């Protein structure tokens, strides 16, 4: 009996990223609907080449959809990082203008303005530094997440291309199973970090 082709982690990952996309694929490939729900061992065991290729084709469809969803998530993460930087600038400007405005509102004289202005400027500098540090940490986490997701999408895309080529060229089930395993393992790694990457 040839090795079983697994796609459980790809299905789980797509379920996290876009449950309705998974449901659509389950409708398109009804033979695997039970396995999506109950896990990798729920399907029939002894399978001929046709069934194995069908499994790999389904894994390919899952990989395609996962790549699309991960790319979408990467784009959302990048735009979130950019908007964080501009919001930091806006907060700093508002804080500075607010400080000057407050001094004017209290009707302080020019000399007082110089003295108090020094204090306010220092406060604004502290505020800016704090904001900068916070947003750097936040944006660097977001940026790291975006890089991770981008790498995953790229990696899965390459593996998917390899798998497509193996299926089209009628290569051995062992080779197809190995390529599918790599896709599934990459999905497993992402599933294991799903909270860190905020996939759910």
């Amino acid at each position, binding site marked *: 009996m040839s090795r079983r082709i697994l796609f459980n982690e790809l299905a*789980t990952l797509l379920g996290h990223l876009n449950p309705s996309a998974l449901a659509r694929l389950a409708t398109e490939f009804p033979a695997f609907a039970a396995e999506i729900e109950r896990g990798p061992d729920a399907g029939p065991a002894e399978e001929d080449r046709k069934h194995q290729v069908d499994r790999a084709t389904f894994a390919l469809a899952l990989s395609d959809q996962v790549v699309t969803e991960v790319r979408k998530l990467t784009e959302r993460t990048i735009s979130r990082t950019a908007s964080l930087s501009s919001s930091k600038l806006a907060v700093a400007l508002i804080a500075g203008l607010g400080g000057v405005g407050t001094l004017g509102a209290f009707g302080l004289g020019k000399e007082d303005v110089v003295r108090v202005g020094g204090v306010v400027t220092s406060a604004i500098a502290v505020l800016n530094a704090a904001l900068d540090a916070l947003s750097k940490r936040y944006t660097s986490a977001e940026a790291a997440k975006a890089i991770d997701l981008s790498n995953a999408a790229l990696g899965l895309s390459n593996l998917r291309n390899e798998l497509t080529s193996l299926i089209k060229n009628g290569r051995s089930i062992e080779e197809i199973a190995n390529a599918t395993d790599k896709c599934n393992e990459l999905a497993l790694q992402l599933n*294991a970090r799903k909270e860190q990457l905020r996939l759910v």
Partner: protein
Amino acid sequence: MTARNSTLYSIAMSTRSWLLVSLLILCLLQTFEASAQRGRVYRPPTRPVQPIERDIYRVPTTPLRDEALGASPRAPTSFGTRFNPEGSKRAEFWRVATSSFGGATTKLGDAYILLRVFEQGVVATTNFVQAGANDAPVLILKHEEVADASDMSAALKSLLGTETPVESTRLKLVFDRDPALPEFSALFSKEDQSFLIPTNSFAHADLYLKDKSLVYSIDRIDRPNPPPRWAAKLNDCCVKTGVPPDLDGWAKLGSVPFNRGKAQLVSLFSDSQATDKFGSLPRASHIRGPLELKGDALQAIEALIKSGDPGSPVIIVGHTENSGFRVERPGGEHVSFEALTQIAIAADRPVFFVGCYTADHFHSMAGKSYIRDYIVSGTLNTLHPREIAPKILEAMNSSSSMREFTEKLSDESLNVWISNNFLRSVAEGTARTVRAPIYKRTNDGRTSIVGFLFVYLPCKLFGGC
């Protein structure tokens, strides 16, 4: 104002008093409930033999046999037809049978077939009264006739008017002596744990053994290869054992503690959804999936087992391969049951292995009676991680005894079988290891072994070594 304050004060005082009284009542109720739980006698799904049921043994079987030779099968009377002539021994047997085990009925669903097995033969009758009849046939059969499928079918047709009783028709087997005795070996195979009587028409049976005070509830298990296994129920659902069951051992297993607060889990299932099901267990004291294993798998498991409380159990779950667990991670390893058991022995901790089976491994380990219980070949991992993981978590979190843990692993779809040999050794305090198969009903309606529960119990759990 003062009057209003006084009213409010008295209302508050009275409310406080009532609250205190309610609290006291609640505490007392909880105390009574707890003591009632402790003192409650365990009731297995067997029941005591009712005095009236013993009447069946009072009807002698020998005259029946003699009478059978000249008996008229169906005699018309003014009120209908009679199978057993009035005043005959067979009429007396039918009267006693229907008063002992349940009255006559015209509904097949309420009917039972009674087989009273004695040394020289079997008396068969039923409480089902066919249309136009006043009673039911009382047949006298030889042992070899009962063991013959076509003879038995003919007998059933004679009793019920059909060869196929409905699912709820119950079989009542009354043995005049121990079924393990040689004269009964033609009717029950201890090795196959099966009645040699064709019992395919029945799903359940009540077993009466002479001089035993309990009626055993037994179920038919349609294993992949015939004949069907007959199993005695140890609880309402779904732990089973051989016939007749050792209930003392089962009761004693209830007193072997399971320290749920300090139990630790090692899951070697790679499926991330299975890992997620164990998500409520803290990562510091459990291994919820193989990706959480750092370095060498066996060393990581050993470190975990050594770090825990010596009396508390370790539960290791995963897919099996060649007498061990497969560690499902890139470059996967194999950890043998033997090595894991040695670690548990060294740490003086009870250990439970729960795994799927691989045919090769179990075929080499299984006794003859179990060989028929496996799916023939080619099926992988029929104990699904996502199916067993929630049961393990529930059993870990809520069991206070080894028996409870076993019970909570099982349900209507997954039955656990514990051998009578193990139960006997539990009763004697000598039990150390048990390999309990896990049965599952498959799509074709058959029930086959899909996994196993292996348990190692340190002797200290039985009160001394």
